[in-house]
């Protein structure tokens, strides 16, 4: 499994190495997404001058400045807050993100652990972040925070279902839940007998792809689904009492999860690390880059929606999940099943 590096390392070292890499990927992914999309793309789309200024060229220094600002801030804890729960909540959110990354493959051998139930595991652990959000909202002893946490919980539960249904379509087609297996199913697939570029599931599961991206947008509480943090109604929702480093944790959690969901969508629907005609060792070297490009494309779509649409109303949000997305997901699953049996 370590042939790409042309050296043999033990099981424990491999595990430690993988853990360190995944731990590094989360803040790195969060920073890249935050920089490219939140600072630069939003500035261009909305003609914002602030983030384009610091440091001269294109405001490249903005992110460094933001980071320094967060680290300098005083660590404030409300007097009435439940200290222990308040302090643990950001960690729960980040741990949930960390666990998702464990199953995302970046090459034939570049995966921490290719679980048999991979994609199911990813959705299960990503649902843990709701607990962190509820903990944060309650422990802040602030009514806006509590309202934000309740909105977040209701939203995350509602949009988990379309997310699962969208994934189920892919699983039925690929015949496996392992993310590595799903990548291979796309690489080895063929479009009407022509196997030149494999068969990325976005072609057959286009409805599923749309469902997944919309539901992931809601899971990430990004506009147009950002009621839990709606600044004009709830100040900042469950994050309102958090400052400095703890707030940074939530920020990293949010953008790290965005990276994870974009990577999942890229793996499920766009073929993940696979590139046509690239096999074996070359795939191990190119895999991470290919996955990164595909991930950035999905993230681009999600942030494009985030910067373009106004916020939905709370009842519209629930109606969209239960009356539109879930029925579409069920029909999609039914059609996929019929095709699976028929062919």
């Amino acid at each position, binding site marked *: 499994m370590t042939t790409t590096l042309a050296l043999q390392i033990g099981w424990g070292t491999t595990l430690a190495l993988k853990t360190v890499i995944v731990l590094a990927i989360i803040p790195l992914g969060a920073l890249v997404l935050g920089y490219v999309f939140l600072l630069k793309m939003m500035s261009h789309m909305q003609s914002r001058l602030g983030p384009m200024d610091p440091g001269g060229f294109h405001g490249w220094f903005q992110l460094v400045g933001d980071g320094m600002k967060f680290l300098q801030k005083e660590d404030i804890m409300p007097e009435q807050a439940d200290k222990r729960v308040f302090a643990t909540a950001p960690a729960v959110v980040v741990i949930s993100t960390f666990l998702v990354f464990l199953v995302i493959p970046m090459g034939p051998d570049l995966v921490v652990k290719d679980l*048999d139930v991979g994609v199911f595991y990813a959705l299960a652990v990503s*649902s*843990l972040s709701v607990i962190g959000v*509820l903990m944060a909202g*309650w422990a802040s002893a602030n009514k806006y925070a509590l309202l934000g*946490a309740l909105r977040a919980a209701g939203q995350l539960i509602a949009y988990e279902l379309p997310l699962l249904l969208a994934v189920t379509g892919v699983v039925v087609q690929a015949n496996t839940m392992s993310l590595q297996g799903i990548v291979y199913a796309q690489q080895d697939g063929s479009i009407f007998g022509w196997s030149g570029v494999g068969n990325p599931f976005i072609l057959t599961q286009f409805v599923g792809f749309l469902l997944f991206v919309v539901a992931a947008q809601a899971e990430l509480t990004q506009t147009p689904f950002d009621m839990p943090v709606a600044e004009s109604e709830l100040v900042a929702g469950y994050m309102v009492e958090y400052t400095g480093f703890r707030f940074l944790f939530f920020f990293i959690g949010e953008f790290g999860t965005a990276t994870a969901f974009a990577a999942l969508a890229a793996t499920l629907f766009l073929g993940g690390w696979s590139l046509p005609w690239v096999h074996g060792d070359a795939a191990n070297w190119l895999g991470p880059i290919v996955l990164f490009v595909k991930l950035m494309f999905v993230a681009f779509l999600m942030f494009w929606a985030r910067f373009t649409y106004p916020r939905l109303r709370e009842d519209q949000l629930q109606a969209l999940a239960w009356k539109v997305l879930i029925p579409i997901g069920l029909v999609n699953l039914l059609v996929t099943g019929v095709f699976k049996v028929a062919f």
Partner: protein
Amino acid sequence: MWAQQVAFWIIAVAMGLSAIGVVRSRNVVHAALFLVVVLAGSAAIYILLLAEFVAWVQVLVYIGAIVVLFLFGIMLTRAPMRDDAGKLDNDQRLASGVVSLFLFGVLTVFLIDAFSDQKIRFTDSLVAQGSARAVGSDIFHQYVIPFEVVSMLLLAALVGAVVLARRD
């Protein structure tokens, strides 16, 4: 084998202490959070027993949905920051003691009767038994009728909840 034993005892102690925390806590939100640890511990035990699929179902359904609904309900009705001023004790110690003793006795007798001194051998076939493929094919072949009955029951409960919640 030894590593499994160590892991089991760590998980078991953490679960036991958290279970005591659930019933001893004077704050309902804390009790619900302790419950998360207990449920996560049972998921970990499933993994130790190589029932991987069941373990993640446990995480997704119990922690990701049921406890979240508990917390949701608690926070929507009352979410005291300090110890709950309301009465959290229902004064049923004798009855609950009898029920727990009875349950403990029944489980002990049946488990010993069924498995006595059998040891679990962690083989590849046991791994295959716990996989999603095996669980799925069991449910939809051998246990398809009970499975459908449970689905109908849940659907009936769902419809009932909607009827009760409707105002008009």
